[in-house]
């Protein structure tokens, strides 16, 4: 797709373990996004349930499609826009095998999902305790352009966004639940992922506090040159609608042609070396 796109960054805080209340928050923000002229509204990682839900995750996770995605599909249809949000997903083939997923819905219903590949399990994070990692990148061809989905810690691993970009993503959306102690990493990495792929990148982080963990907000849209097009407040809930223009990618790509200069033969070496760390 060429042309302009209006994106709403819905930097919300969540009610821990309360899907009903979180769906209300999602609804309020979708209605606001529509009112303010956005075509796509993005919510953070696990925005359906909150991030720190620990063992409650088994009660809260749902299949996709499922009851909550159907509610969000209805919202997308009624408001004629696209929505991306995060939720714990139950496998179609098992009962307690879960994924940390991002869901993309449009006015015509569910478009697709992405299962987080890199699950942080260190420091205060315990995602591998609960989730199985995903194995596929996700790029969806929509009326708003080719949209790729990644989640939070995936951003530390350039191969995820690289693969997403090579599959054609023009806009990479990273939903996140990142605490304040990690802010400097994310501010650098989000810009780096946009620059190295000459792609637009929308990063939407959580606000609020869960079990002492304070999310730093700072959601942003970054252009392919690394320029921050729009930015939400640090630490607090915020809602930002901004315009980006896909046409801007061409001149950046000509100026720093990272895709033209890719060296595929290095990837085999990368694989060999990574196996023997």
């Amino acid at each position, binding site marked *: 797709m060429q042309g302009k796109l209006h994106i709403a960054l819905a930097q919300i805080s969540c009610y*821990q*373990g*309360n899907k009903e209340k979180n769906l209300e928050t999602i609804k309020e923000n979708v209605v606001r996004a529509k009112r303010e002229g956005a075509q796509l509204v993005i919510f953070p990682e696990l925005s359906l349930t909150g991030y720190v839900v*620990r063992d*409650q995750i088994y009660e809260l996770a749902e299949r996709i499609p499922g009851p909550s995605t159907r509610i969000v599909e209805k919202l997308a249809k009624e408001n004629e826009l696209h929505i991306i949000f995060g939720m714990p997903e139950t496998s179609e083939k098992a009962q307690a095998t879960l994924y940390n997923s991002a869901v993309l819905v449009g006015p015509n219903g569910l478009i697709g999902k992405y299962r987080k590949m890199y699950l942080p399990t260190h420091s205060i994070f315990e995602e591998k305790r609960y989730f199985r990692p995903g194995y596929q990148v996700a790029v969806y061809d929509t009326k708003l352009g080719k949209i790729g989905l990644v989640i939070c810690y995936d951003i530390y691993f350039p191969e995820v966004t690289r693969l997403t970009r090579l599959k054609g993503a023009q806009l990479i959306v990273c939903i996140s639940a990142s605490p304040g102690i990690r802010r400097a990493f994310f501010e650098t990495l989000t810009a780096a992922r946009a620059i190295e792929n000459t792609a637009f990148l929308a990063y939407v982080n959580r606000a609020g506090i869960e*079990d002492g963990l304070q999310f730093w907000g700072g959601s942003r849209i970054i252009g392919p040159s690394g320029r921050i097009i729009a930015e939400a407040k640090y630490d607090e809930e915020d809602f930002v609608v901004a315009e980006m223009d896909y046409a801007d990618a061409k001149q950046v790509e000509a100026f720093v042609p990272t895709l033209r200069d890719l060296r595929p033969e290095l990837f085999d070496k990368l694989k060999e070396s990574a196996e023997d760390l």
Partner: protein
Amino acid sequence: MSEAETRIVRFIKDYVEKTGTNGVVLGLSGGIDSCTVAALSAEALGGNKVLALMLPERETANPRDTDHARFVARRFGLKAQEINITDTLTTVYRSIQDFDPADKVSKGNVKARMRMIYVYYYANRLGNLVCGSSDKSETMMGYFTKWGDVAADISPIMDLYKTQVRKLATHLGIPAEIVSKPSTPALWAGQLAEDELGMRYEQLDLILYGLEHFMNPREIAAQLNINTKTATKVKHRWLAAEHKRRMPLTAKLEYRTVGSDFRLPRTIS
């Protein structure tokens, strides 16, 4: 330090709101930790939602500390109450058949736990949370009374070393006189934290910082130009006190067990 202040203030406010409580109760000794927590609580909730209990007892009472506590309560607009717990303590000592006044630690722990009883009584009566004053240095070292001074619903400065608390206290406008006086748990007369810990907080905190960052005693000693034995001693004390920082240990018998693999969020909306 203003980022730490902002984060702690937001943390206190958020948790009080989420738990639907009316404010906090804290023990205000006049020492740097409790004065800092009192100031942060007042900033988060307003002084009228912070009840500061001053709980002196004869053996450790120090007019200077009482003056400091009163000053901080006034300065930050706290509600304050002073209750002398000497008679209560005396009654407890007398009621214990085997009570040995020469055993300073066991007797001193009764004082810390008695203060906890008063603080929790008011918290229950008022529908408030208990706000603790433990810092990271003493928590890592196990330098506190189990179920005593450490007992609380929230401990806002538990992730700050003593030397960091001093900087934060100064930033909050707590007078230098309070910041610079020697710390004491007030379990017996003349007790000083740095004497018992065996070194100044300036050195202890650097050793603890190294342990926090997965450094071994040899690496820490080399960095700080100190004896490896000193760093090793701190490490052993830190590890030996883990039982004081956890739920009581139980035998694993069933599917999910309290304190180990029963993992639930603190608050459910």
